[in-house]
């Protein structure tokens, strides 16, 4: 059971690591706004360049085809 002298501080160290990570995130303002991010993550990523042909908002998905 002497291994506990190594395991316990190790466990505490791990917890401290997670704690420091959270504190840095909080101090960096990542928890200031809790309303917007849940919506923001729903927006698809896209290249931030003007679309050459603005006009077709989205292409309709083709009807499912049966396997021949």
């Amino acid at each position, binding site marked *: 059971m002497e291994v506990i002298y190594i395991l316990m501080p190790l*466990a505490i160290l791990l*917890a401290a690591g997670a704690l420091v990570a959270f*504190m840095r995130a909080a101090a960096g303002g990542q*928890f200031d706004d809790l309303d917007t991010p849940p919506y*923001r993550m729903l927006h698809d990523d896209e290249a931030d360049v003007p679309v050459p042909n603005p006009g077709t*908002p989205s292409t309709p998905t083709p009807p499912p085809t049966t396997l021949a």
Partner: protein
Amino acid sequence: MVALTDSLFAEARNEQVDVACSHCGLEVPLGRIALETTEQFCCAGCQVVYTAIRAHGLDRYYCMQAASPGAPTPARLSGRNYLELDNAEFLDSYALRLGANLRSIEFFLEGVHCSACIWLVEKLARVAPGVVESRLDLGRTLVRVVWDERTTQLSRVAQALDSLGYPPHVGRDVKSRELRQLDNRKLLIKIALAGAGAGNVMLLAFALYGGSFHGMEGQYSALFRWMSLVIGLVVLLGPGSLFFRGAIAALRTRTAHLDLPIAIGLGAGTIAGTINTVSGQGEIYFDSLTGLVFFLLVGRYIQRRLEQRATDTVERLFSLTPSYARLRQGDTVREVPIEALELGQLVEVLAGGSFPADGRVVEGESSVDLSLLTGESRPVTVVAGDNVFAGALNVARPLTAQISALGRDTRVGKLLCLMQDCAQRKAPIVQLADRFAGYFTVASLVLFVGTYFGWRLLDSRHALDHAVTLLIVSCPCGLGLATPFAVSVALGRAARASILVKGGEVLEKLISAPAHRSSVFLDKTGTLTDPGLRLIEWHGASNQRPRLEAEIAALESKVNHPVARALSHLQPTDAAHLPLSTELLQASGNGVEGKVDGRHLHIGSEAFVVAALSDKHTINTGSFFPQWATDASQATSKRGNTPVWVAVDGSLAAIIGVGSEIRSDAKSTIAALQGRGFRVAILSGDDPTAVRMVGAQLGLDEMQCHGGLTPEGKVQFVEAAAGHGPVIMVGDGVNDAAALSAANVGLAVRGGAEASLTAADAYLGRPGVGVIVELLDGAARTMSVIRRCLWVSLGYNVVAAVLAITGSIGPLGAAILMPMASFTVLAIALVSRTFDKTLTHSVTSGAEWEASSWK
């Protein structure tokens, strides 16, 4: 393309199919339906925004908007050039410098409402090159923009936001907002530290408890105890110091604060735990103490977030008051910040702009919308020599005014001061739990001393053990959590039902008002009646009416004026009357002149139509206008409606009465309130006769209808009634703002002015007044949930205290009992029903919804 438009038009013509606005999806007034294109717009604002969005390839906005819930709103833009934002002094005081060329600023945005808006605002860089980053905080409608000074100017950025339909307002209070944010982050870090510490100590404690039942080698138990001590001290001296400071402050001011017993409990536990750890025997308490710190901090965090929501609303109000003026010096006009204005200077106010200061018109003729000050929705005609007031909206044509009062000396400034005074004079917020605190503190201290000395006589070895156990169990963990948690759950549910309540104390005040002694005062315009105007009566040949209505709608849709807007919504009963060509010849604040399908129309006030016709025919007006017209016109004004005269090809065709309609749920709401015992009365700035007319329709007698009241008069009324019992005031305008703060509880209705939202304690976000009853019922249910929570946690405390005093439980039992108390309280708060849409359902008609979004 042409065929498509033709068929669309024919559809609208023959089948009465509503044409939806390409931007906002609302119905397009017939007069605005364009022949040449498939893209239809309900107003000019929507057209500008739609064009801007398409031009920058941001079409995806419409796909996302369709997928997100929320009522559509037509775009409103200011169309300003925002040049005052480029002023170097302005930038230095409001914009942060991030590097050599980068700066950042925060804007409050109008019109942000859904997740698609987030996407659009954050794509600002496409519309305004030079923007490096834009991030929106949806909850506060605050956007932070970082821009490159070399490539763009802030005015361009603001113009771009405006062109997307989100007019920006500079957030003035940058420093305090930043301080609050830092405070928030610090508290969050404290919670993290306390939570991590509590969790780890709890794990160690489980091992120790296991050891105490099944035996554990001395060296390991010593290790666990010493580790608990180290972690416990970190938590108690770090995040826990908050309570010690609170207790010291309470001692200095000699008040019994909830922090005091908490601090004594924490202190005694820490000292006893440390001694026991060092001596190697007895309990160490750190598991209970760290858990306590964590739970109490979470409760505080919830409370603070609620308070900040209220502060944000106040800030938004100040950002909405005009921050710039068009100063006229000689022949040049330039935009200056409002602080630079001086008495006697000339300012120009364009149509659609609001006055930056009180003053006297020296040039121009226009109509002015004073609804901000008087609540009266019909604009007043002003000519040179008339007085105008800051905050009033110039509706028709440019005016030049000489400044006579500035800032706080203006009428609206005085009103805002009055509002602040009233808000400060309100009784200090007394939280339900705080009322317990005094007794609680004294009781736990007496019991602590009693237990300690009692046990010294019986068993001196365990005296401190029992006494500290008592302090732990009597720590008001659940008690401290109950109120903030139950309130935040209820407020969240209310918000989902579109009722925004500013804090728990509002719910408490609502329910502590005994119905038989309380009064409910309702504002008339915009509260009991629909915001915006409608056609109420029609005098004239009825066989002419369908065709004439279509022609009036077509002509008036070209004009921006409240009365015109009401008339542009007339829908012809027979679609064959839809006019094909409309030409606007002349428009002023008093009326319009135009040609529709070859017929020459004059629509406007009596004076306008009479003058126009006399010009053409040089006739004797007395004989020209039949008696019925004069009678109808007088009767219309007597009923509180505005008479609009209509002449076709030089002869009088009809008199239309335009006014506001009583909301469909107003009568049932008043009956429901009276049924509960409330005294209901109307307080209005409108003409007393008109107020009595409305009151009669709602079942209120003359004694309960008070008209012709100034904003100050409303406050006096509320204060006089407050002598007899609690007062609930419901209103929507700036003219109600002071009365809303003066009342015990002020409720602002949907579509109200920003000032009324600030002054009010709750905002009813759904159209109609039926929500008032829903709010009262929800508040009653919430208070009973809070009481239940308090009784349960108090019950736990009493039982545990008895067990601790008799020595039946040690700190182990206490450590199990106390979290259980907290969890029971949380469960009760979560499970109980408070504000559920299914409980009280208020009927909202589609027409009403549309009317309110049109304001």
